């Protein structure tokens, strides 16, 4: 493990950083500096620094439980850092009050990993929610048109009156995406947008991410396990492991990355250590413990 961290430190140096140090600030939409997050004693993010470029798509990859969601929640301060700072458009936001944050948050769209649809509301009402909260004067007709347009973007027009409970996991995720883009945000944070979708649907979502970036100049951050999707949408790929960034660069950089953990992840291989554990527990369970466990 320690050797691992040593390598990370070196890697960081070699990894490409943004061009032009001077006007870097103008191109940076979101920045976290020295972010550390602990839940109780559990260290989830360990001194992470990253800046997200304006108008680009940044992909964050990493194994389950490595802190991708937690990092993403810090971008809109749904969670407060234990230590470190978060900046949006050059303004520090991690210490703002909830009320001040609400103004900032309307410029974001956040797709939750599990969708987080309001289950007491229909699909249409879910998508209307942010619009009704922030635009008081709009007519019913206008809202309906927006809902229809957003649902059409995710291929679910006609599902307005369904309730989340009656949708499949993938459909729920797409409705959640439609809700996230309801306010035409400048920044969209996607937490595993393609997980649980079939390959065709995944590709449609990838195209949607690209389209939003191309047509509207949206800044996107995509958390994913799906390397196909990462290569396709990512201008830049960051790999998180054990709460630290171990790789940072474009698709080619990641593909040819020398770090074994990165290679294992992108090729979907189990490490020798994990395999050893698996073999041993298998042998032990069948030979000794299993029969006795069942007897009791």
């Amino acid at each position: 493990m320690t050797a691992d961290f040593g390598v990370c430190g070196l890697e960081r140096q070699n990894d490409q950083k943004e061009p032009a140090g001077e006007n870097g600030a103008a191109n940076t939409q979101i920045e976290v500096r020295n972010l550390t997050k602990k839940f109780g004693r559990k260290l989830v993010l360990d001194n992470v620094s990253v800046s997200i470029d304006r108008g680009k798509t940044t992909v964050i990859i990493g194994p389950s439980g490595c802190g991708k969601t937690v990092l993403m929640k810090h971008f809109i301060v749904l969670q407060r850092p234990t230590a470190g700072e978060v900046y949006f458009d050059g303004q520090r936001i991690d210490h703002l009050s909830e009320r001040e944050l609400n103004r900032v948050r309307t410029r974001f769209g956040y797709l939750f990993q599990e969708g987080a649809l309001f289950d007491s509301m229909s699909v249409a009402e879910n998508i209307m929610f942010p619009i009704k909260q922030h635009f008081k004067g709009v007519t019913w007709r206008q809202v309906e048109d927006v809902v229809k347009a957003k649902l059409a973007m995710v291929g679910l027009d006609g599902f307005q009156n369904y309730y989340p409970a009656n949708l499949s996991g993938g459909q729920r995720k797409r409705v959640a995406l439609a809700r996230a883009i309801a306010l035409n945000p400048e920044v969209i944070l996607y937490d595993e947008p393609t997980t649980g979708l079939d390959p065709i649907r995944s590709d449609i979502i990838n195209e949607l991410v690209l389209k939003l970036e191309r047509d509207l100049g949206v800044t996107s951050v995509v958390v994913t396990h799906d390397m196909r999707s990462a290569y396709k949408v990512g201008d830049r790929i960051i790999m998180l492991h054990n709460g630290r960034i171990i790789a940072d660069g474009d698709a080619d950089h990641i593909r040819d990355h020398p770090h074994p953990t990165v290679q294992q992840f992108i090729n979907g291989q189990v490490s020798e250590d994990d395999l050893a554990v698996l073999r041993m527990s298998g042998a032990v369970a069948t030979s000794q413990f299993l029969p006795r466990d069942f007897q009791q």
Partner: protein
Amino acid sequence: MIASLGAKAVQDVVDAGRFGRFTWRAATTSLRCCLVRGTFPLVWNQVNVIGVRSVPVIMITGAFVGMTLAVQAYDQLAGMGLEEHLGVLINIAVVKELGPVLAAVMLAGRVGGALTAELGTMNVTEQIDAVRSMGTDPIRYLVAPRLLACLLLTPILIMYADVMGVIGGALVSFLQLGINSRAYWNFSAAGVELWDVAIGVVKGFFFGGAIATISCYKGFNCKEGAHGVGQACTDAFVASFISILALDFALAVVFKSIYLTFWPIKSLV
């Protein structure tokens, strides 16, 4: 051992502080919401969900309280030849203490449980985070309407309980115990003042506020999973129950001193 006790004490103080801040924010936000027309539909929605469906159970609670009091108190009073004073005893007890407290306990179970379960589920499925992520204050959108609905409804529901308690007590007294109805009402009218009824109803205001804030707080701070939601509901009910009793005691002391500064003590029998 001592370290863990200390840690627990620190945790309790931290929790109390968080609850205090939550209550403060809920109260100020609700006040501000009273001025905004947009919240009225939300409150109305909650009034229907919370209030209307509680009416039957509240009425049943009230009726049984009155009926039981009549049965229990009769023998003692009859032994002293005072059975016609039964009405005062029942009606004072119902409107001042038992009606409000038992109705509030019933609401803590029925309404508080539903609030905690609903908000707790929203919390563990990240729906509350979703509200925040869209730039809406969850206290304003979720807590304020529920708090306002509870503040509005608890006094009204307590009046229902009072009415049913009075009717239940009277029916048992007349039909089962054979007390002269004229005398029963006369003594009641002489003994029960508007003040007594008002106290009961004002208490409802405090009880409603306590139930709503505690239940919403527990829902907002619910732990992961089905077990977490269940635990939060249990905690919310226990905490609501205790605070209803504590508030009842505190309010009794306060109201009594207010009463005594204006009027002399009155004897009921």
